């Protein structure tokens, strides 16, 4: 690409202190911390910029406009679907803003696998605490539980399954005024959801952060004194230059950029250890309407040490009509019969702590299409089956008339590909968040996860990004 005359020598005719590629919970956090420290930063985002007033309102429109692949990407064997956000704010725009600290099991497993000593609850505590300082965190009060949540808690209590209220990054949802938070799967129209757009990017922009949306990065050219970033923006080739670059495009994005840039030869672990917490929905039909799509969304989840050891958890979720229609198996009149009972379903989801055996690579040919090779291992399947069996028992205990198990699994937590570790043969990023032997290239998002934690990753990505920012700034000052 460097010889292409259509490339502007430098779009803004300047060299940034930092270019951050990706604007989700990691990119937003790092952009904020670096800009706040006085650095000249450019934040690149492949998707469009929306605001509370402009988010697409309908499921069909936000599915196609806020996600890669026009809504869904699929593993090479076609068994797993992946949802990967593509908009300013990234996944934090479309997720349910759940904030969970990792437990000692997750950190211990990560330390053993990576050799990284700061993977430790005490070491990470100050970073969690710092992130919490500028995020509003709430639990949904019990009086606002909808019938889906009530069914979940009652079923858990009947079978002695421990559950917990979820900590949610939100400020003021106005449930008292009848807000239905399922809408916010396409972006929160109230700015109540504490997305990176709300918590970090907007503030960083006010301090001078420059943002280029609809800028899809193709490759980077690493030099000892600067890093050039090349991509396409609204049909034009563009090149920008930074003294340092932070990769925050997620497991698939970061890996693809590095592979396209020729790092695969230098980094044998690049693309390895991909995991995704495969999630399986089960719908249960009840005699009276449940209206799981109404009111507070995802108030509770399982919190049972037995399940934690077994490697799965249960979440109390629901899906809008298109998502539900995709998940309910089959087609024809029976499918429509089941869909006609949309208001009568409660649902639960099994999320599996899967083995990080997936691999991200690029296809041959000029297009170099991203390939995600991710199959469930026997252990993953065993965990899935055990979780689905428990869900069925819970729904039966709650008095369900019919239970519909969905066979299509989805991965929403996309992790690995550029894992952190001390061994250059088995990892891509070192404990200082630098790509091995490339001190001006950093990553701190879910791509560096050594394996699946079995816990919602957002909060820890923010905490790791906070820690990474301190490393990066310390290195810059020194």
């Amino acid at each position, binding site marked *: 690409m460097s010889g292409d005359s259509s490339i502007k020598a430098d779009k803004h005719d300047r060299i940034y202190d930092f270019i951050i590629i990706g604007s989700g919970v990691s990119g937003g956090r790092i952009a904020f911390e670096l800009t706040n420290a006085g650095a000249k930063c450019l934040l690149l985002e492949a998707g469009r910029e929306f605001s509370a007033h402009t988010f697409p309102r309908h499921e069909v429109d936000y599915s196609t406009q806020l996600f890669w692949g026009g809504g869904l990407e699929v593993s090479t064997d076609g068994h797993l679907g992946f949802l990967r956000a593509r908009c300013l704010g990234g996944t934090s725009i479309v997720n349910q803003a759940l904030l969970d600290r990792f437990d000692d099991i997750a950190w211990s497993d990560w330390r053993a696998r990576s050799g990284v000593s700061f993977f430790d609850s005490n070491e990470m505590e100050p970073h969690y605490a710092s992130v919490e300082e500028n995020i509003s965190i709430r639990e949904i009060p019990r009086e606002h539980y909808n019938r889906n949540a009530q069914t979940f808690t009652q079923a858990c209590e009947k079978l002695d399954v421990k559950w917990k209220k979820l900590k949610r990054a939100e400020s003021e949802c106005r449930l008292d005024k009848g807000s239905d938070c399922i809408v916010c799967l396409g972006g929160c129209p109230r700015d109540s959801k504490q997305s990176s757009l709300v918590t970090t990017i907007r503030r960083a922009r006010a301090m001078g952060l420059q943002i280029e949306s609809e800028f899809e990065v193709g490759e980077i050219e690493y030099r000892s004194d600067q890093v050039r970033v090349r991509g396409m923006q609204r049909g034009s080739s563009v090149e920008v230059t930074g003294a340092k670059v932070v990769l925050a495009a997620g497991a698939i994005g970061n890996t693809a950029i590095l592979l396209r840039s020729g790092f695969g030869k230098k980094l044998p672990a690049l693309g390895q250890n991909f995991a995704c917490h495969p999630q399986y929905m089960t719908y249960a039909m009840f005699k009276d309407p449940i209206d799981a799509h109404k009111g507070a969304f995802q108030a509770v989840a399982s919190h049972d040490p037995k399940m934690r050891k077994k490697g799965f958890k249960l979440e109390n979720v629901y899906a809008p009509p298109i998502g539900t229609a995709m998940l309910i198996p089959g*087609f024809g009149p029976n499918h429509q019969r089941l869909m006609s009972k949309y208001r009568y379903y409660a649902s639960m989801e099994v999320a599996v702590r899967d083995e990080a055996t997936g691999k991200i690579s690029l296809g041959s040919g000029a297009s170099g299409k991203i390939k995600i090779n991710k199959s469930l291992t026997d252990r993953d399947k065993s965990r899935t089956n055990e979780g689905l069996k428990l869900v069925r028992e819970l729904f039966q205990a709650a008095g369900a008339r019919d239970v519909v198990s969905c066979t299509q699994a989805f991965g929403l937590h996309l992790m690995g590909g550029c894992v952190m570790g001390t061994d250059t043969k088995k990892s891509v990023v070192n404990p200082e968040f630098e790509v091995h032997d490339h001190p001006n290239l950093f990553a701190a998002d879910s791509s560096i996860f050594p394996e699946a934690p079995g816990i919602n990753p957002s909060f820890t990505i923010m905490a790791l990004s906070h820690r990474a920012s301190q490393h990066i700034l310390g290195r810059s000052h020194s």
Partner: protein
Amino acid sequence: MTTSSMHLNVRQIRGLNKLGDQMLPGYQKLASFSEVGAARHADRVLDHMPASDLKDLKMLLGILGVLPAFFVAGFLNFLELSPSIPTPIGAFLRFMRIGLRGLVMTLYYCDPKVHDVIGYQVQVYTDDMPRQSSTATPQDLTSRPELHV
């Protein structure tokens, strides 16, 4: 119902309706795919579909447009077997199944008439939200500390 599309020609729209009516033929108050006129939403999806996928889809819909309905039904029943067919043939069929199901279910279950029947009505209260521009204005940076890299 006459449907126009920036992406699909008449034969491809016929193929889409044929496919849609096999998947969603109607059940009680839920009308069939073509009765709802779901194909009119097609461009909302196709505008954002990756070019290579769109090309393949148009070719397939064009073929389905000239095939008899019973053949389309058989084709869909075959695709439903794909989860148990080994890779790589199974993978190809699963891609096709997810893609076609995704398109048809999306176009049908985004329709307001269908939402009325299944009882999907949602809202978020925003009356107390201030109007604001989507982009903030960068402020004076002179007070920011200087960072040397």
